[in-house]
């Protein structure tokens, strides 16, 4: 695959904590696939943790400071010509997307009072102008056009039946979601574009249990089992996600599900970008399949894709 670097579209990219650790395969597969589409993710200099979860109380401005510092970095990238008039902040992790987009909405409220108040905390940097727009990679793919994605596919993932797991953070609250909160179709379109078959299933936006995986593990085990069983009952071979926490809960927690119920049939869980990289014909290093808990290789070999 030839790529002329000067023609790559450069976009500020916010990785988030887990993509630099347990979900390195998510980041690698997404960045390498994006290059095939002519997009370069430019990591935001000195980015800091978004806070993972949105602050939901009306009296808590403090927890919006971290997201705001990242927005300031994006405005700096423009003033320093690291990117050219590109104020969109690209995210891969669903939780980063949700937290940053909601925070941006909170900070840029109608009366601009919050923006002014929070800018008063910024002693070491320029004020935030409110120019940044937080987007998710799925939205960028939709904008490029799934038919264009399909044109770049070298290895159509024929006969692979994939359950699109949206989870919560890409869809709700509805005013920041990337698609209809109850009846989304963007991930189905993505799955079709790489030659695989999307499987409709009831649990596509059922919560996996989120951070309860720390202290209320059984809730997460039960939830993950319901979601995976539902996907299997609807004919899925595997599930895709864009959330590293959903991925941990659905993938790694299958260890506990299996320990509690020997009849449970395990199922591979992929980051959507891993299947994109596979369909683009990228090599093993880009896929990072060895980091998945449930080994997806037997499935992919059975389908003639590895």
């Amino acid at each position, binding site marked *: 695959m030839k790529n002329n670097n000067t023609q790559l579209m450069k976009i500020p990219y916010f990785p988030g904590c887990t993509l630099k*650790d347990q979900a390195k395969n998510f980041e690698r597969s997404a960045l390498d696939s994006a290059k095939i589409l002519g997009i370069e993710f430019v990591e935001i200099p000195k980015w800091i943790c978004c806070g993972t979860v949105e602050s*939901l109380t*009306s009296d808590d401005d403090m927890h919006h400071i971290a997201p705001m510092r990242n927005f300031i970095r994006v405005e700096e990238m423009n003033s320093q010509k690291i990117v050219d008039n590109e104020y969109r902040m690209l995210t891969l992790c669903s939780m980063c997307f949700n937290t940053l987009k909601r925070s941006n909405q909170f900070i840029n409220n109608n009366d601009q009072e919050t923006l002014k108040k929070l800018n008063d905390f910024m002693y070491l940097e320029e004020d935030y102008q409110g120019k940044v727009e937080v987007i998710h990679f799925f939205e960028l793919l939709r904008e490029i056009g799934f038919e264009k994605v399909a044109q770049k596919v070298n290895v159509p993932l024929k006969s692979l039946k994939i359950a699109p797991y949206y989870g919560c953070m890409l869809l709700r609250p509805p005013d920041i979601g990337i698609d209809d909160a109850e009846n989304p179709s963007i991930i189905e379109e993505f799955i079709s574009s790489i030659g695989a078959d999307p499987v409709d299933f009831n649990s596509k936006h059922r*919560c996996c249990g*989120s951070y309860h995986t*720390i202290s209320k593990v059984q809730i997460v085990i039960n939830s993950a089992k319901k979601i995976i069983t539902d996907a299997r009952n609807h004919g899925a071979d595997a599930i895709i996600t864009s959330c590293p926490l959903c991925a*941990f809960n659905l993938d790694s927690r299958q260890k506990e599900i299996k320990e509690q119920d020997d009849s449970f049939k395990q199922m591979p869980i992929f980051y959507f970008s891993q299947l994109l990289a596979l369909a683009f014909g990228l090599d093993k290093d880009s896929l990072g399949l060895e980091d998945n808990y449930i080994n997806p290789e037997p499935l992919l070999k059975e389908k003639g894709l590895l």
Partner: protein
Amino acid sequence: MLKTIRLEDENTQFLKKVESISGEIITVCDQCGVCSGSCPFTDDMDITPANMMRKVQLGQSDVLETETIWICASCLRCMARCPRGLDLSKVAEALRQINLRTAINHIKVEDISPEEAKRLPAIAYVGAFRKLTG
């Protein structure tokens, strides 16, 4: 026959406090139960999400002692479906915050086993500590 429920001052104060922290007008809840039917974790809770709203409407501060307020993980299924446009996740957050602002954490780091500690991703830690500690 028209019945009137009169709240004692302390109940009104509790209701007002939760409304103020959450930013939600809790009295408009009709008790239709869509939230309880939509919540994926109603079965794991000690009171339903609709019950939680009713208790706050009546200013019953023992809602602070329920498991329900801690189990809500802000998945927002109820919020997306509430016919009154209420966001229950903000109400649960306000109730958690009333507890957490007394400097009592809901989880203990030392309860996480070393094997789990190694295995868990950063995103889970940050999420849990933000929601369950003060």
